[in-house]
């Protein structure tokens, strides 16, 4: 039981009469590479909100490495190692890339209560931040402001900030959304090179990305988990094809599933 990295059991959330999350159960082993797919409005982002603690579930239970975190604040969950990125870049716009990552490193090291020593002389923290940027090939741009770099770089910076927080479970909310095709490869390389012991749950629309990344896929439809299994099985399932794509998308989907 406690050898799972993340276990969510029976999560429910309604907004008024709308059941956005309807009895969702999800289990991630340490080192898992799970993709969560589903049509628009299936409740994927709500689920990330429930897991990260920005949304309170009506019922259900979430365990992180054997600890019940259902009632804990988002900040507390981050400290325990449950870290998320955002679908739309949510960064510190008027700061540089290095400063963005520094904030996360500093918070993770508990240094932000230091009111006295200059941040610029905390070589330990700065070199950690620089190493993370280097790992994502952002080293050259570390002195640029967030507003000066491309959208693709901003998405990578999202991941850099997440990595700076020492995650044990990483929730990636559509990391490739809106990135030009050329930059997706860089992002996928970055995801590939994540430490193997981190469990990763990626929400993604793009089947190419899912196929390359995931060893397991869960399909979310109308707030319910329709199916969980290896990518090839899931993509071959007629049920999934029917609900997820409708009849129109079936031929394209089938083609991609064959490639898998």
């Amino acid at each position, binding site marked *: 039981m406690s050898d799972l990295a993340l276990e969510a059991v029976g999560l429910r959330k309604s907004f008024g009469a709308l059941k956005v999350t309807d009895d969702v159960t999800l289990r991630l082993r340490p080192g898992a590479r799970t993709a969560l797919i589903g049509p628009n409005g299936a409740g994927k982002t709500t689920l990330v909100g429930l897991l*990260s603690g*920005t949304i309170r579930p009506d019922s259900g239970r979430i365990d992180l490495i054997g600890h019940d975190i259902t009632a804990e604040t*988002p*900040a*507390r969950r*981050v*400290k325990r190692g449950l*870290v*998320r990125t*955002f679908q739309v870049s*949510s*960064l*510190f*716009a*008027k*700061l*540089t890339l*290095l*400063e963005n990552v*520094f*904030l*996360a490193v*500093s*918070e*993770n090291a508990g*240094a*932000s*209560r*230091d*009111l*006295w*020593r*200059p*941040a*610029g*002389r*905390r070589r330990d*923290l*700065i070199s950690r931040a620089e190493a993370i940027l280097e790992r994502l090939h952002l080293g050259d741009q570390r*002195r640029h*402001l967030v507003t000066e770099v491309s959208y693709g770089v901003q998405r990578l910076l999202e991941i850099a*900030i997440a990595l700076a*927080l020492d995650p044990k479970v990483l929730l990636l909310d559509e990391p490739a959304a809106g990135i030009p095709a050329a930059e997706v490869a860089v992002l996928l390389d970055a995801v590939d090179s994540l430490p193997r012991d981190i469990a990763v749950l990626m929400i993604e629309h793009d089947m190419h990305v899912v196929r390359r990344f995931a060893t397991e896929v869960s399909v979310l439809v109308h707030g319910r988990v329709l199916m969980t299994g290896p990518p090839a099985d899931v993509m071959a399932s007629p049920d999934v094809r029917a609900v997820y794509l409708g009849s129109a998308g079936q031929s394209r989907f089938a083609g991609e599933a064959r490639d898998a």
Partner: protein
Amino acid sequence: MSAITSPLLDRRRLRPRELVWWLLALGYFFVFPEYLAVATSVLVMALFALSLDLLLGFAGVLSLGHAVPFGIGAYACALINLAGWHEAISGALAGGAIAGLFALLIGPLILRLSGLPFIMVTLGIGAVLYEAANKAVWLTGGDNGLPGVTLDPLLGVFRWSVLGQTGYLYALGWLFALFCLTRRLVASPFGMALQGIRENPRRMQLVGAPVLRHLVVAYGLASTIAGIAGALSAQTNAFVGLEVLSLNTSIDGLVMLVLGGVGRLYGGLVGAPVYMFVQHFAREWNPYYWMFLIGALLIIVVRFSRRGLIGLLDDLLARARQRLRR
């Protein structure tokens, strides 16, 4: 253009340009010995605007009630003085401490709010305290204020002269000390975290930062500095009136800061003298319509540079440098 403050990238300690301000302030003492009383109140307001900058420019918290800690510091310092404690430095520190304590008490309650609700609550607290001070005549003297603040010679040596030489240098010393402290503070990891909260409070929460705690600490520190500014005003004027708690005081500080440049540390230090200088001459020009000039100045500065007069100066220097290179 680089970030507003970038302690990670910009590690030079004191730039020569900065010395200009302090040398001018010191030079003023020798050049205009007969106008030191007015200049002292400029220094006090510069310190007040600096404390507001810590809150607004770095933590991104806009308060319309910053006169509250200023006024509490002023009244507390005066009351301690009238009770028989005449030493100046400890008196000012006590005023600051009481203002800071008050902020730590209400901070956890009001800093949960943000945006418009927070602004309205600070406005409300300001109004409540102003009327409470007006009513509590036994404590504050009400409309008549508290006259008769008298001080022992500073450090046991320097007498408080009629022309205000001691007062001016005393206020300048406080300003310099608290400026250095604030400068150090905003460059610390804590200061960086404040800037993260300013940029994106929700994301800071999801970086694991205790956002409310950070804000309460910043509010407490800013209020302590504002309280010391209030105490200095009580000591150097030898008087405290209701005006220290008024909305006008809050707004004056804000306008000075915006005029000079928000988030620039020197914003208040540049804004306060310009504001009070223009105010002085506008009043002589026309005692009824002088606000017209202040308003026009504010519009012009904000229109041409969101970063205030300092931003304008930066732009001019950058352009001049480009010319020279060509």
